[in-house]
């Protein structure tokens, strides 16, 4: 299993049956493949519906996910406009949002929408999702391609939202924000605490219950 699939697999274990979930584009879209059999979630798509499902067969006209890609829908789907979509998101009616990150810091700040002067795609729905969802999970590779830390003392890039991240899941570890403190909760198989310290700039405490990363057998 590569890093992305490992992360998606671990994040999938965070979902509870009945959760309403919004998945960012990229890595998070792999998560439904790894849900436990007894966990059924409802996927919210910020372009205007609840009931996103996998594409089965031919594309359906005007049915795309928030990445603009053809998708499917489950029985009991509901369509709505963008104001209602974000009333649902901002109003706390989404249980979990999973997004990628460029940087997360030890205060729970997330930066994932721009690199000034280089890449300015825009925040899309990310600021509202991170502000409004009950549980914000950042799912990302632990370090940059050239080995730099992404879990920092303080984000240097423009923030997506301040102090909203609840968990960080990487291919090396699971961190949680508990009482405003970054806590190492799980370590991936074959990884040492020293490996994590070496690739993490943020200050964190190791949970007394810190264990091996919980993955399905």
């Amino acid at each position: 299993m590569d890093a992305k699939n490992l992360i998606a697999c671990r994040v999938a274990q965070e979902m509870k049956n009945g959760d309403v979930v919004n998945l960012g584009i990229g890595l998070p879209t792999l998560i439904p493949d790894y849900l436990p059999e007894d966990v059924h979630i409802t996927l919210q798509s910020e372009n205007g519906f609840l009931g996103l499902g996998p594409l089965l067969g031919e594309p359906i006209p005007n049915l795309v996910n928030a990445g603009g890609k053809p998708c499917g829908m489950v029985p009991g789907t509901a369509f709505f406009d963008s104001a209602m979509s974000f009333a649902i998101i901002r109003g706390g009616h989404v249980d979990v949002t999973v997004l990628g990150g460029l940087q997360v810091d030890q205060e729970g700040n997330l930066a994932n929408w721009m690199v000034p002067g280089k890449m300015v795609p825009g925040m899309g729905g990310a600021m509202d999702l991170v502000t409004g969802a009950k549980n914000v999970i950042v799912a990302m590779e632990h370090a940059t391609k050239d080995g730099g830390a992404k879990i920092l003392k303080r984000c240097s890039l423009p923030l997506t939202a301040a102090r909203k991240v609840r968990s960080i899941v990487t291919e090396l570890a699971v961190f949680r924000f508990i009482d405003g403190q970054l806590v190492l909760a799980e370590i991936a198989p074959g990884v040492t605490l020293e490996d994590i310290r070496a690739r993490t700039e943020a200050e964190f405490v190791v949970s007394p219950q810190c264990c091996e990363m919980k993955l399905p057998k």
Partner: protein
Amino acid sequence: MSTPCKRISYAELRSRFKDGMSILFGGFMAVGTPDGIVRDLLDSGVKDLTIIGNDTATPDSGIGILIANRRVRKVISSHIGTNPETGRQMIAGEIEVELVPQGTLAERIRCGGAGLGGVLTPTGVGTIVEEGKTKLSFDGIEYLVERPIRADMAILKAYRADEKGNLTYQRAARNFNPLMALAADYVVAETDEIVNAGDIDPELVMTPGILVNALILCGEK
């Protein structure tokens, strides 16, 4: 009631295009964007447009073709990452881009159409989005005051319309369209079908006809 049908031709619509005008456009990654009207805006040669909508699609789809062909002076949008031309022109200083969180964009357009002076949102607090904005705190929570957006024209993509202008949208093509229908001085919808008044279930109407000035049938020449 002998309401005349609101159908017009592209030629009639074109007489309303003006250099420098502002346009609200429906759509999310071009799904729900009236491609025929966008194409006619391009063909008309109108320029210096301010365009307002969720994203700028791609250089060869949706509203993106107006950017690729340099007809746009300013973009107000939540996401431009799928159209490299928008980012390139922005960084080169050729167009102005105002990035707005998607939910805030929806609310600002809704305010523009609903006679509201703005909304208080927690989205953007503690980020660069708050720069220059009025902030209010209630019960220890900070909010940004986000102000209305309106435009000279709204261009919508409907699925089915009746002759009075009542509109329905299809699936994920609804997105910003119903909000924009209230927020412009002139509202035109491109539609796949025009039926008689009464042929759309009144429960299913997503935009009441009184908000719509004109209809264009898709593919009309």
